[in-house]
Structures are given as structure tokens and as C-alpha cells.
């Protein structure tokens, strides 16, 4: 009979479940994240590492991130892609929690995994994260701000100024400051993360305490959790995975801009102005009208220059008026000759 192992610490249990859960779901979520990038649905505020961590930790950050954004003005990014990605990560995380949780129950606790383990682990972790992560965010931000200002004051101390004749050199000063505030912030972050992981570990341990112990030997347990990871219809699974992959690739290819979305100032392209469409009938009619006008103009000029006709004063005046009125814009002032 396989006996239950020595009781494990809640931190170890929490880490043992959360770490593989995060990585199990991440590759799927990443594919959708890149697609959201390509479609222009998501803009990150220069905090790619933070966004990556959020996505990695979405089993616990799912409710915490909107809370932090609203109450603590934490700004992660913009675009419809971010909430969509978080919504999409819910079923992925439930599936990942299920597969990791069942394995952990069988292999480590040697207990029968309860029904709906994935969903139960997901919502309990998400609620715990919603309470804990805003506190962590606030405390770490506060500690970092205080540590930065304190380290800055320390590096300006008079004793250090005397040690170096011209004060502490810039590179040393920056290095010293970063070491001081970085160490303090990192220690606080690690401490709080350990508390949070331990909390999740306690939740999992409580669930395991009421689960049925298993009487199978170790080989049988391994075979069971191993088979749990193999889909019943492998052909269908591979086809589905390949199909989704192809669809995502095609969508990505369609959404991918052909030329760079960030052109260099040397290579800005002028906006191409579309030429008006060529309409032969209209052009022909207009040309005919212009020809008729010019013909009439030439006729009028010829008549005005004929001897005897322009001798009378009245006739001269009328002829001149007509020519002036028919003269096309921009044409030479032939009447003044």
C-alpha cells in the first residue's frame, strides 16, 4: 500500500502546484497574446516583463489586476486585447489547474483527486489573489519608494563626500543606490510572495485532507496519472492541435503589417494621392467645348481685323465687348493688339 508521504509545508505545496500550472497554460495564452499584438488590440505600457508575469500568474492575477488598475492606478496597458486575453485565460487556467492538481494529488498526496478539482482550485486561488495581490502591490510600491529616497539620501551623506574628494562618482553612486533599494524591495517582495504561495498551499492541503486515500502501489499511481495526460483519441487531439495552429498562423499572417509600423524619419513615405478616374466621354465633350470657344474667339478676332468693318465707332465697341466676354481665362489679350 502506498502510504501518504511526510507532511509537506504549505509553501512547498503551493509552489508545487502554482509553478507548473502557470507554465502549462502559458504557451497557449502566449499564442493569443501575439495575435492580439498583430491585430493591434493590445498596447503595453513599456512593462512587458510585468505583463508577462501577469499572464504567467493569471490563475491568481485574474481578479487582482482590475482591482489594482482601479484602486491603485496601476497601468499595465491599453486595448481590448488585455481583457479579452484575461477572459480567454480562465478556461485555460482551469484546465491547467485540473491536470496539475490531479497529478499532484495522486503522486504527492497519494489521494483520490476530487471531482471538479481544476475549477475549485482556480476560483479559490483567484479569490485569494484578489485579496492578497493588491496588498502586495501597495506594500512593495511603498517600500520601493521609501527605499529609493532613503538610498538617495545615504549616497549624498557628508562622510561619503569626504571619502571621495569630489563626492561619490556617478557610477558608484547609482550602483550603491540600486543595491540598497533593490535589496530591500526584493526581500519584501520575496517575503510577501512566500506568504501568498503558502496561503494557496494551505487551501490545497485543506482540500487534500478530506480526499480519499488511495491503496494502489506507486507503479499503478504513476500509470494512472501518466495515462491521464494522454488523450483518449490521440489522432483527434493531434488534428485539433494542428488545426488550431494553422488557423492561428493564417490569422497572424493576415494581421501582420507588410511594412514597418515604426518607420524611421529618413524613410517616411509620402501619402500616395489617388488620381481622379479617367472618363473619356467627359474629357471629349469638354475638349470639344473648348475647341468651339477658341474657334469663336479666333473668328471674332479675324472679323475685328477686317478693313472697313471696324471703321464705324459703334461696331468697334460691340465687337470688342464680345471678344472680351468670350476670352478664356489665361489667354493672351488679343483684343488689345
Amino acid at each position, binding site marked *: 500500500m502506498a502510504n501518504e508521504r511526510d507532511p509537506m509545508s504549505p509553501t512547498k505545496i503551493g509552489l508545487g502546484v502554482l509553478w507548473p500550472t502557470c507554465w502549462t497554460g502559458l504557451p497557449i495564452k502566449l499564442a493569443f*497574446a501575439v495575435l492580439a499584438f498583430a491585430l493591434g488590440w493590445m498596447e503595453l505600457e513599456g512593462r*512587458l516583463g510585468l505583463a508577462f508575469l501577469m499572464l504567467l500568474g493569471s490563475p491568481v492575477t485574474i481578479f487582482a489586476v482590475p482591482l489594482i488598475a482601479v484602486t491603485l492606478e496601476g497601468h499595465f496597458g491599453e486595448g481590448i486585447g488585455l481583457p479579452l486575453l484575461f477572459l480567454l485565460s480562465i478556461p485555460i487556467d482551469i484546465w491547467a489547474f485540473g491536470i496539475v492538481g490531479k497529478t499532484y494529488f495522486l503522486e504527492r498526496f497519494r489521494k483520490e483527486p476530487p471531482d471538479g478539482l481544476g475549477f475549485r482550485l482556480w476560483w479559490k486561488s483567484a479569490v485569494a489573489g484578489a485579496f492578497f495581490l493588491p496588498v502586495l502591490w501597495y506594500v512593495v510600491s511603498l517600500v520601493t519608494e521609501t527605499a529609493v529616497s532613503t538610498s538617495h539620501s545615504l549616497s549624498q551623506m557628508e562622510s561619503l563626500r569626504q571619502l571621495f574628494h569630489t563626492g561619490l*562618482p556617478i557610477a558608484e553612486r*547609482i550602483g550603491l543606490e540600486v543595491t540598497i533599494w533593490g535589496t530591500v524591495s526584493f526581500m519584501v517582495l520575496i517575503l510577501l510572495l512566500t506568504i501568498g504561495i503558502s496561503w494557496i498551499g494551505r487551501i490545497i492541503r485543506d482540500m487534500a485532507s478530506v480526499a480519499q486515500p488511495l491503496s494502489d502501489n*506507486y507503479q499503478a499511481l504513476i500509470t494512472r496519472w501518466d495515462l491521464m495526460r494522454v488523450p483518449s483519441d490521440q489522432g483527434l487531439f493531434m488534428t485539433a492541435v494542428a488545426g488550431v495552429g494553422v488557423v492561428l498562423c493564417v490569422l497572424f499572417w493576415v494581421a501582420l503589417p507588410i511594412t*514597418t*509600423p*515604426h518607420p*524611421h524619419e529618413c524613410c517616411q*513615405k509620402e501619402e500616395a494621392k489617388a488620381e481622379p478616374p479617367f472618363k473619356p466621354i467627359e474629357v471629349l465633350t469638354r475638349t470639344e467645348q473648348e475647341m468651339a470657344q477658341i474657334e469663336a474667339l479666333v473668328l471674332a478676332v479675324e472679323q475685328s481685323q477686317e478693313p472697313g468693318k471696324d471703321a464705324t465707332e459703334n461696331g468697334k465697341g460691340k465687337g470688342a465687348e464680345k471678344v472680351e466676354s468670350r476670352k478664356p481665362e489665361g489667354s493672351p489679350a488679343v483684343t488689345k493688339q
Partner: protein
Amino acid sequence: MQQPTISNEPSTAIEKIVAFLDARVGLKEIQAKMLNEPIPGGSRWAYVFGSILLFIFGMQALTGILLMFYYVPTADHAYASTQYIIHDVDYGWFLLGYHFWGSSAMVVCVIAHMSQVFLWGAYKPPRELLWLVGLALFGIVIGFGFTGYLLPWDQRAYWATTVGVEMVDKVPLLGDFLARFLKGGPTPGQMTLSRFFVIHVMILPAALMALAGLHLFLFRVAAPAGPFQGTSEEIKAKTDYFFPRQIWKDMVGMAAVFVTICGLAFWEPVVLLEEATPDPGEYHPEPEWYFLFYFQLLRLKVFAGEFGQFMGAVALPVLFMVLLVALPFFDKDPERNIFKRPVALISWIFIMAIIAIFTVSSVINREFLD
């Protein structure tokens, strides 16, 4: 009564081709050797780094070849052809972005892989040669980054190379020759670009392929190092073969790295500075981000002056590499659990802390320069 016979004769065209090749090169034996490698304790996500590195190298080679269709390695046209790739070639900006971030991913994965080997004590006997070849591969990856950085021929490329070659110049005995060989003249110019290009696209890929093959061979001879958790009975119960479990994990790892690099190419595409000139103007020379910590380290007062520069630019990195090379030979303790090797654990934390602190410091230092 006549017994029904089962024929082993190949029937389809593919089976016939496979049988033809198998008869001549032993295809099935090679396949069995490649795929049926036992993994004590079962497949693990922690084992994917080697395969991921091979995948990144393959993608770098592919994107590099595509970029070479348009890139002109001359001082007159390198900058313009790179701008042409970014602005005119269909999807050129994405290819260049992928190649650029792929090089960073390679450095990150190499360091992660080396850290893993160090922390797990996988460099200890009988895997000394595996460790040494791995170190040589690390050097090649860094060489790829250094030589590739010059190719766009903008201010960033030009001045980072100038600083790098000056550091090479400080190496005793060989430094002057190496610096002159790399530059090919008093200042970086056409000869420098040609030499860096040849090293980047011919010498380093050939060296990497040869050493990666040797690394894989040595790995198969030495077998996986673990760590294997549990009793010997438990490890035996969980043992499976390289195919299909580990291959599946490797494929998922490769896909994750692929989409991460695609995301980075989108999020931070390559944008060139002004074309390279011997006058830096207001530009402050800076290396690629993974060298920033070292660049900041060299700004410390202790590394000023002729002797200080020699210590920082030459003695320190050479000493570090000598320590890494000698590591499996002076660390004879068979203990491999990192929590029972405090010196190794503290050393690793110290090095990582130095890298993190000085990288952040370098970014802050920019404000003072600007």
C-alpha cells in the same frame, strides 16, 4: 493445410523509399538511437533548453539567409540596405525584428542552460567535456551577438564595435594583432564590416554546428544528469523514452519561445539610428542590453586608468572564464544538490545580483548622460 504468411515487403512508395535508405544507411537504427533514449525519472520541462537552443539557432539561420537576400555588406550600402529591408521589403521589418530578438533569446537561453547545469552540478565527472564544449558554444553565441551588432552600420553599431575592439586591443601580446585584424584599418570601415560579416555568416555558424554536434554526442554518451527526485524504485517507475513525451515538451517549449520572439518583434521592432560616422555627435556609445552590466561595471572608478582598464576589460573576464573552464577539475565533491553546496549557490546568486544591479544602474546612468 497452408499457413497464412505475413509479408514484410514494403508496399507503399514511402515504405519502399524508407526500406531503400534503411538498407544503405541504417535509417531505422539511427531513428531508434535518436528516439529511444531512456530518461530516468521521466520527461521534464526542465530538459527543454537544449532543444530550444537548437530551434533558435535554426530560426536564426533561416531568417539570416532571408535577410542576406537584401543586405549589402559594404560601408556604402549596409545602412541603406538595412533601411530598405525595414521599409520596403515585404515583412522585412518583422524578419529583422525576429532575427534581432532571436539573438537575445539565444543569449538568455544559453545563460539559463548554463545556470541549470551549474546549479544541478551537471558539470561534474564524467561530464567535464560536455561542460567545456558548452562553454565554447557560449563563447560562439556571444561572438554572434558582437559581430552581428555592426552589420546595420548605424551609430549604435559603429560605436559599440569601436568600444569592443578597443577592449580587445588591451589583451596582452595578442590584443594588438586581434584588434588590427578585426578593424582592418585605423578606424572601423569597409574592411571591418567585411570581416565581421564573414565571421558572422560563415565562420561562427560552421563552428556552432560542429560544436553543437559534438555537444549532443557527448550528452548521449554521458546520459542525462538529472537531478532525479525520489527513491530508485520511484525513478524507475517514472522512466520513459525521449519519444514521445520529451519531444512533445520540447515542441511546446519551442512554440512558446517562437511566439515570445514574435511578440517582442512586434512590441519593440528594430529602429536604426543615424548612419555610422566617425563623429559620435551627441550619441553615447552603448552595447547590446545583455552587455550593459559589464559596460556599467567598467565605468567604476576602480577600472579607470591604464591598469584599471586592463583589469576590467581583460583580467576580470579572462579570470572568470578560466574559473568556469577549471570548475569541473577543482570541484571534486560528488555532492550535486545545490542546497548542500553553499559556495556554489552563493557564487551564483552573487553573479546574478551583479548582472541585475549593474544592468539597472546602466539604464539609470543614461539620464545623467542625456
